[in-house]
């Protein structure tokens, strides 16, 4: 295994470095660094979008969740493809691209800031990215470093540094071009690996229907009842059934995972900016073709294989997946690969997981760097200087910050499944803070600046309170425990059940209601607080 892995990893890294160098060579201006010169090929754009969207977390973290929750997680795949690709490109992408071009916006916060003529909105959006995206990035770093550690036996600290240094080098040198070239290459590896994974799982279980039947039958097998009682949440009704309506597992699946991540994709700054990297709608139309197929091949396969891994691991070990993986959710998919796939494929899969982590991480570094350098330092604080230098410096700062969080997280008693949880948290934040304002920016000419501002503030405040003090995930953030002594403020009260409700379920309506209320109140005065010329410019040809 190690011999194959070393060869495959070296080839992979050489190609990645070469593509990073190509990006560096072709980066001449700040527009190249920020938006890849706005002339990206549709296939590269689609693959880059997909590879950024899908991190190791989506495959290993959420694939492991599917082993516990079953195929109900496919609702997330449906949302990923239909909302994350079709709706995102057709209803959001085209308008974003045209408005971004008209306003000469280089980042997502800049698009919102220029659309609403508000430095506050640009700065606030950038600050949210700068403050909270490092947590998401740290979880991706942790996922990548854990993988290297598990497969090569290299200590966590060294794995982490090597992983970060490679990604940081090409992001810092080649900006968006390097990010997108390497993303596209990494997406191809991920696609091949996932296809092999799917075929292996179904072939090993005797085909499509036979595999599902075995999974269905496994649930009633007396030998696993004790395992299920010990390891699976209340409400579980089998891997080929939805959890019981209203049960803790149902709430977690529907309100946190499917809604939180499924809708959150629409307002991800690192994805939205990709719409502005192409020169016309034609490129976006073409990107939809490959984007939908790619995402289905990623999360669709991960969730089906994650669920099916229970049968295969049971046949081999007599235990269901989570027990066979020593109760570590994030180990289920790697264990499946080790147990059922040939060594050469394990090496390819290892590289595909590194690729998934690197592609997401590179975009996170780029987005955080541009938010801190371009949006906060240059635009919001009004500092004069070279955009490229400021963005590159800020990129270094956020890289160090994210790496420090990932480094320290290894020593903390952080629970299993943290990669998926941190990913969900960031998606929930962008849903609440950005989505209503982003929809308003694209579709509602008469939306006042004040309504956008308060929608954003209230959404992020509601997200903060619910995530850090109410939701069951608050226990991982430690703040509530430090301040109140309890992992959630509703714990031990009659409102305890609220801790099951996903943050999106609460924070998104709060943002929408506040935005609508301020809009109504402002609308009565009859005067829009944005220059009409700006509105006309925004919506010309949009």
């Amino acid at each position, binding site marked *: 295994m190690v011999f194959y892995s070393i060869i495959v990893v070296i080839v992979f890294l050489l190609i990645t470095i070469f593509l990073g160098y190509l990006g560096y060579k072709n980066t001449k*201006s*700040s*527009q190249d660094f920020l938006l890849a010169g706005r002339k990206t090929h549709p296939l590269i754009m689609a693959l880059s979008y997909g590879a950024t969207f899908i991190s190791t977390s989506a495959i290993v973290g959420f694939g492991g969740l599917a082993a516990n929750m*079953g*195929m*109900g997680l*496919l*609702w997330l*795949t*449906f949302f990923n*493809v*239909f909302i994350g*690709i*079709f709706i995102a490109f*057709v209803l959001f992408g*085209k308008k974003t691209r045209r408005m971004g*071009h*008209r306003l*000469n916006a280089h980042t997502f916060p800049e698009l919102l800031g220029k659309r609403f003529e508000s430095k506050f909105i640009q700065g606030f959006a950038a600050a949210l990215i700068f403050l909270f995206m490092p947590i998401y990035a740290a979880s991706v770093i942790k996922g990548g470093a854990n993988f290297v550690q598990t497969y090569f036996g290299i200590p966590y600290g060294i794995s982490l540094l090597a992983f970060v240094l490679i990604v940081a080098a090409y992001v810092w040198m080649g900006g968006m071009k390097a990010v997108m070239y390497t993303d596209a290459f990494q997406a191809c590896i991920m696609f091949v690996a996932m296809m092999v994974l799917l075929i292996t799982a179904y072939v090993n279980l005797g085909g*499509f*229907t*036979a*595999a*599902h*039947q*075995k*999974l*269905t039958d496994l649930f009633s097998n007396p030998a696993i009842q004790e395992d299920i009682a010990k390891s699976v949440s209340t409400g579980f*009704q*089998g891997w*080929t*059934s*939805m959890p019981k309506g209203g049960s803790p597992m149902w709430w977690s699946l529907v309100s946190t995972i499917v809604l939180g991540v499924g809708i959150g994709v629409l307002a991800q700054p690192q994805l939205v900016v990709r719409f502005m990297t192409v*020169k*016309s*709608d*034609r490129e*976006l*139309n*073409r*990107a*939809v*073709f*490959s*984007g*939908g*197929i790619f*995402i*289905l091949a990623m999360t*669709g396969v991960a969730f089906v294989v994650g669920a099916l891994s229970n049968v295969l691991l049971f046949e081999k070990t007599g235990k269901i997946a989570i027990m066979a993986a020593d109760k570590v959710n994030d180990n289920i998919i790697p264990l499946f690969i080790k147990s059922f796939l040939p060594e050469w494929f394990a090496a390819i899969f290892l590289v595909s997981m590194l690729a998934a982590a690197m592609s997401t991480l590179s975009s996170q570094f780029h987005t955080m760097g541009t938010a801190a350098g371009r949006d906060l330092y240059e635009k919001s604080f009004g500092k004069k200087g070279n955009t490229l230098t400021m963005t590159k410096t800020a990129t270094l700062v956020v890289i160090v910050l994210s790496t420090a969080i990932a480094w320290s997280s290894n020593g903390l008693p952080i629970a299993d499944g943290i990669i998926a949880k941190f990913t969900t948290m960031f998606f929930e934040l962008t849903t609440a803070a950005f989505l209503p304002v982003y929809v308003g920016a694209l579709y509602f000419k008469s939306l006042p600046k004040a309504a956008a501002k308060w929608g954003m503030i209230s959404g992020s405040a509601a997200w903060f309170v619910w995530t850090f003090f109410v939701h069951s995930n608050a226990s991982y953030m430690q703040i509530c425990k430090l301040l109140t002594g309890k992992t959630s403020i509703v714990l031990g009260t009659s409102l305890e059940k609220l801790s099951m409700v996903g943050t999106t379920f609460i924070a998104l309506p709060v943002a929408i209601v506040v935005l609508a209320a301020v809009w109504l109140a402002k609308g009565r005065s009859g005067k829009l607080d944005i220059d009409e010329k700006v509105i006309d410019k925004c919506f010309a*040809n949009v």
Partner: protein
Amino acid sequence: MFGIPDLTIVAVYLLCISSALLCAVYGLVNWNKGGELESQQIEEEAEWELGEH
């Protein structure tokens, strides 16, 4: 159906595949639509050039 007793799971399995097919068909049907007018593009790029200096 397909060894899956819960029809909502069957439905979502099929929905996943259908939505990917929808993306593919949409992409193919609109493959050549939406190309930007060259003059407009040149005008915008000239504006950005000015903005950068």
